[in-house]
């Protein structure tokens, strides 16, 4: 049996991580976290998380960048904002989770095959290209990108029900003024970090 160290040493930590996340999330009070655990106990997803939200906050505060970015927790956060409105230190926890997701995507460290970041990116791509998302096309690209043809087949009965009740169309939606949208996307990208 190989014995490995389970606790990070100071040299493994990233001293700039707190500042990075405070900047990205626009939440400047992360340091005032008192580790009370109200977030973890309020979170409807915490039972599925590998790291509870309270621990994520401690990780951010103390530079455990790798552990925070590689956790499933940030992807399971469904943005219900329960932790955020209850936090006694008024930390915008949901916004911190969002900024961790963005960092994980930027640094390409999110778990492979996890459908959540794929869905997020596909939706973003549809909107910046067409201005509108189309439910059917979004789902198709999600299943294709996550290589789950079996899951797609299992969705067929649901798709049929949606079609039958007129709640899903084959049309690709789009805004009329695509040039305006394109020039907006271009302008935002220019000069962005």
């Amino acid at each position: 049996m190989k014995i490995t160290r389970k606790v990070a040493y100071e040299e493994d930590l990233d001293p700039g991580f707190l500042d990075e996340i405070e900047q990205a999330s626009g939440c400047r009070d992360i340091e005032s976290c008192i580790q009370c655990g109200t977030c973890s106990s309020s979170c409807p997803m915490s039972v599925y998380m590998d790291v509870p939200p309270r621990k994520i906050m401690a990780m951010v505060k103390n530079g455990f960048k790798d552990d925070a970015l590689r956790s499933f927790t940030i992807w399971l956060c469904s943005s219900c904002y329960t932790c955020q409105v209850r936090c006694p230190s008024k930390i915008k926890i949901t916004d911190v989770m969002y900024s961790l997701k963005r960092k994980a995507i930027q640094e390409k460290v999110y778990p492979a095959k996890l459908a959540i970041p794929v869905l997020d990116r596909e939706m973003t791509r549809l909107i910046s290209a067409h201005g509108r998302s189309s439910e059917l096309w979004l789902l198709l690209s999600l299943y294709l990108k996550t290589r789950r043809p079996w899951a797609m087949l299992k969705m067929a009965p649901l798709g049929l029900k949606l079609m039958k009740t007129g709640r899903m169309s084959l049309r690709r939606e789009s805004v009329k003024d695509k040039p305006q949208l394109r020039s907006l996307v271009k302008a935002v990208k220019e000069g962005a970090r």
Partner: protein
Amino acid sequence: MSRYAYYPGCSLKGNARPYEESILPVFREIGLPLEELDDWNCCGATAYFSVDDTMAAAVSGRNLSLAERANRDIIAPCAGCYLTLRKSNEFLAGRDPRAAKILADLKTAGCEYHGTVTVKHPLQVLRDDVGSTKLKSMIRRPLSGLRVASYYGCQLVRPFTDFDDPDHPTSLDDLLAVAGAQPVAYAAKTRCCGGSLTGTIEEVGLRLNYILLKEAKRRGADCIATICPLCQFNLEFAQGKIVKAYGDDVRLPVLYFSQLLGLAMGIDKKELSFSRSIIPLKSLWAKLGNGGAR
């Protein structure tokens, strides 16, 4: 003329058609006919904030700009759109240095925005602009005896808590009581449905919705009333899988609050898109009497 522009978002043109097809007649009857915001783009919901929050605020800024040019405030029936547009609106008005850059970019693209638009959910407009006195006077066929679980979900009541209480909201219960229904004490009313998790990590999504359905059953509800397309979709379309997965018959009609309100206002049942429901509504019509012949 209404001072509001109607922002449908992707859902109300897709799986949430019954929401659009009931909210429009309701507002028409009330005398606030809703005109659709011309050439609106999708809000990006939670996805855009997870990928690129600057672009998220910018694409929402385009919608705000369109409304400003039309001299309208926005009514967004989808809780996701409501939150995204409101959040972006506040971001653009805030002190983050990126806000100024986005406003300049909007101007460059020909959709200048000066921050004059207010974003509201229809429930808010019904409560604050129309008011219960006027609504009460418009109820022709009260939903007597109908026990309803009012489900608010997350994003209408959080993180912005100025409209209603984040844990114990009452606006929807009050509205349904005006419509003659009997709101049940529904402890899970703001518990999350999991959003897109039913499509990404199914076992988690199903469990969350099972909890919501089970609690409504336990409280003796005849149906669940929702204010958000994703909540409605999850609660309705996951029912078959939930019954199978948990061996527990928690089937229950899940309707948009606007369908129930429209019914109470005497709008023709056919006009309110009940036929787009995949859950049989027999029990509902039986409860309301006259076999749903209204």
